[in-house]
């Protein structure tokens, strides 16, 4: 190093030493005993307004986080992935598995004060199936008897949904569906207030949502804030503890972090730059929240587009990518993915790891497939910092085996649109988070040939896989079902339409005053039992 360079390095070391030390977390009451306290407002931040507050139309995390505050479903998840009663106190299934009878709570009221009855459940499920609603959730309930006739306009009601008595709902399916209760636990199946829907209309309901949930919407100033207040008629005695929730809109992740440190927000994610310092800092440790999610991030390969129509090329890519480095790039927030299903998913097999990282072997396989000189292709990815770093890491790995990768950064909606078009996207970076804890929600949704052009974005088609998936579908939850899906997963991995990359875990920090806030493996956090101390 020349003298001048050394001087410069010394100067920079000085600059490095000037790195701003990590600010302490906001001050608050120490954790400890004491009963939950009623009152207070939880302050949250969001980058954008929620897409919608109409449960029939929301299918994204942000919309769902609000829907869980405003509405209830017949059944719901406990702190884990077990189904528990919600608006229904109990249910029975007929021996043939096609009929369900739900007994409703006698005390559930809408935030207008009106008692919930069986007809409201029927109204809500039928509304979801109305063609004019264009609900992405409709497909989950298309198995209800008479749903097709109703959707096609041949019937004025769905035969399979019967309000048998004010406190009893009977649902009938065309075929047994072992996932039906999970589908009823999706926010799509929330019970909405028919009086409000009729009064304001289907479209305006998104701005004037009324349900039975712990909170009701007090104010939504678009682009600025949403204010929710306690639903005084909420059926769980004594809940919610909070007087309300205020969400400030237009707060980026970085800004949310600053506002959290200043004590202006009660919860925030941790920016990548600060992550290592935050988790190592004893002041932050008691405030850290962590959850594993049923998510797999992957590199998708278009099996209908050369050169990825050749399975040898797809396998070679599976060996060419250094996943440990990718994990390091996301601050170690998660675990490396070797297969499709995430840990915590029934049927997950930790021994399934068909492709080890081996550039030399990848290069040899590419040569054997006729690509000794490599080739050029394009990777589509969203334009956020982390994704583009992952893309560049993959880019150098593929360069090492002779593949020249161009990165095409696009917005998320554009990516979703593009990957559905056959022949448009050769390679893409995406993630999939399960809606419910069943392998079909990964394997059938993403790899069944009938789902090409919806969610099977690799255009993967294998008759044997289709057959295994079809056989598994009606089987009840249990070893036989998991075994069938496992066979399908092994076969899909052998065909290698994906390079599974990692299963991310999500992290957040809470203000010390926030109590009983728990991240959930399947859904946004529920807030009715959250309270604030002082």
């Amino acid at each position, binding site marked *: 190093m020349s003298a001048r360079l050394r001087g410069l390095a010394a100067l920079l*070391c000085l600059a490095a030493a*000037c*790195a*701003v030390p990590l600010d302490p977390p906001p001050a608050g009451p120490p954790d400890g005993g004491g009963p939950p306290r009623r009152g207070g407002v939880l302050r949250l931040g969001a980058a954008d307004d929620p897409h919608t507050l109409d449960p029939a139309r929301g299918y994204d995390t942000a919309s769902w986080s609000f829907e869980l505050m405003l509405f209830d479903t017949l059944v719901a998840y406990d702190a884990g992935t077990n189904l528990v009663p919600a608006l229904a106190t109990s249910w029975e299934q007929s021996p043939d598995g096609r009929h369900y009878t739900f007994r409703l709570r006698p005390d559930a009221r809408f935030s207008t004060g009106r008692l919930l009855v069986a007809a409201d459940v029927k109204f809500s499920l039928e509304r979801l199936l109305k063609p004019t609603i264009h609900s992405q959730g409709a497909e989950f309930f298309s198995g209800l008897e008479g749903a097709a006739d109703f959707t096609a306009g041949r019937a004025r009601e769905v035969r399979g949904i019967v309000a048998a008595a004010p406190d009893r709902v009977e649902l009938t399916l065309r075929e047994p569906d072992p996932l039906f209760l999970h589908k009823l636990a999706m926010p799509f199946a929330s019970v909405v207030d028919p009086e409000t829907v009729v009064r304001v209309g289907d479209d305006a309901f998104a701005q004037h949502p009324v349900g039975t949930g712990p909170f009701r919407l007090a104010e939504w100033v678009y682009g600025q804030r949403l204010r929710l207040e306690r639903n005084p008629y909420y059926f769980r005695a004594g809940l919610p503890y909070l007087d309300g929730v205020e969400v400030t809109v237009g707060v980026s992740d970085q800004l949310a972090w600053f506002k959290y440190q200043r004590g202006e927000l009660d919860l925030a994610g941790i920016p990548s730059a*600060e992550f290592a310092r935050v988790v190592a800092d004893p002041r932050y440790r008691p405030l850290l929240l962590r959850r594993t999610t049923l998510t797999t991030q992957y590199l998708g390969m278009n099996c209908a587009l050369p050169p990825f129509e050749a399975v040898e090329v797809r396998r070679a890519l599976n060996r060419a990518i250094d996943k440990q*480095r990718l994990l390091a790039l996301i601050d170690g927030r998660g675990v490396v993915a070797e297969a499709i299903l995430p840990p915590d998913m029934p049927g997950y097999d930790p021994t399934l790891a068909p492709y080890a990282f081996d550039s030399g072997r990848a290069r040899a396989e590419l040569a054997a497939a006729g690509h000794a000189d490599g080739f050029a292709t394009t990777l589509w990815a969203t334009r956020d910092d982390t994704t583009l770093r992952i893309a560049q*890491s993959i880019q*150098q790995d593929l360069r090492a085996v002779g593949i020249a990768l161009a990165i095409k*950064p696009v917005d998320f909606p554009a990516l979703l649109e593009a990957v559905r078009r056959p022949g448009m996207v050769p390679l893409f970076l995406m993630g999939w988070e399960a809606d419910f804890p069943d392998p079909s929600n990964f394997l059938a949704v993403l790899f069944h040939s009938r789902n090409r052009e919806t969610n099977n974005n690799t255009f993967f088609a294998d008759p044997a896989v289709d057959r295994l998936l079809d056989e598994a579908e009606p089987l009840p939850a249990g070893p036989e079902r998991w075994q069938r899906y496992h066979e399908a997963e092994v076969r899909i991995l052998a065909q290698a339409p994906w390079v599974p990359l990692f299963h991310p875990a999500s992290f957040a920090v809470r203000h010390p005053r926030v109590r009983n806030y728990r991240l959930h493996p399947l859904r946004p956090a529920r807030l009715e039992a959250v309270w604030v101390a002082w």
Partner: protein
Amino acid sequence: MGDGGRGRGLLIAGATLVAAIVLLALLAPYLTPYDPDVTVVARYTGPAPPSAAHPLGTDTLGRDVWARIVFGARTSLAVAVLAMLVSLGIGVTVGLVAGYFGRWLDTACMWIVDLVLTLPTLLLLIVLATVLPPSLLTIPLVIGLVGWTTFARTVRGEVLSLRERDYVLAARALGASHAWIIVRHLLPGALPSVLALAALGMSGAIGLDAGLSYLGLGVPLPTPSWGRMISETQTYFAVAPWLVVVPGVAISAAVIGFNLIGYGLLDLLGAPRT
């Protein structure tokens, strides 16, 4: 009005800075053992501070910052030179044609210039960079397409006065063609001020390239570019300030260097500063 001494001083200072950057760009492969696009740390654990092996530290992908700076000099200079050629080509042509032929052609050209000038530069850049396919040539083309108006106006102004000079009138009386007059008599007359403007334009192009890269619309990944180096690492400023400071200094040096050359030339020409 300038005096020759100060102009020369500015010119030398600017030329020194620019020469240093040009040397960085030309000698890039000899100035670092590292590939600027590749992770060089064995195990990435976040950006590393300056050390003996990596005098400017490593970035958020474990790449050598010094290597990215020297190879980034190539990107910044190439983008600036190409952008300048596009701007010069369009601007000088329009200026010559408008100034020489005058009348309705002049009105039309100046109307277009005014139109382009009314468009918000950065917004226009963003739209063009989004619409055009990403490639190494897109960004200079986009910057060039936005930046030609100053050349057109200046050249037109020069030509308006030059075309009434005796030697031009004589050439015309002798039956010289329009093309001949433009290329042989008008262009050389306008050249000095064009050169000064070109230097100033270079600094503008470097700044715009940095801005576009900062917005995520720069040259294709992973090509190192100083603007992108800042945008990629801005959230790390509290943790690893060198990641932002180093490319920031480089951009400033390049912009100041070209500006000094431009103003130095203008001073030497005795032109008023704009």
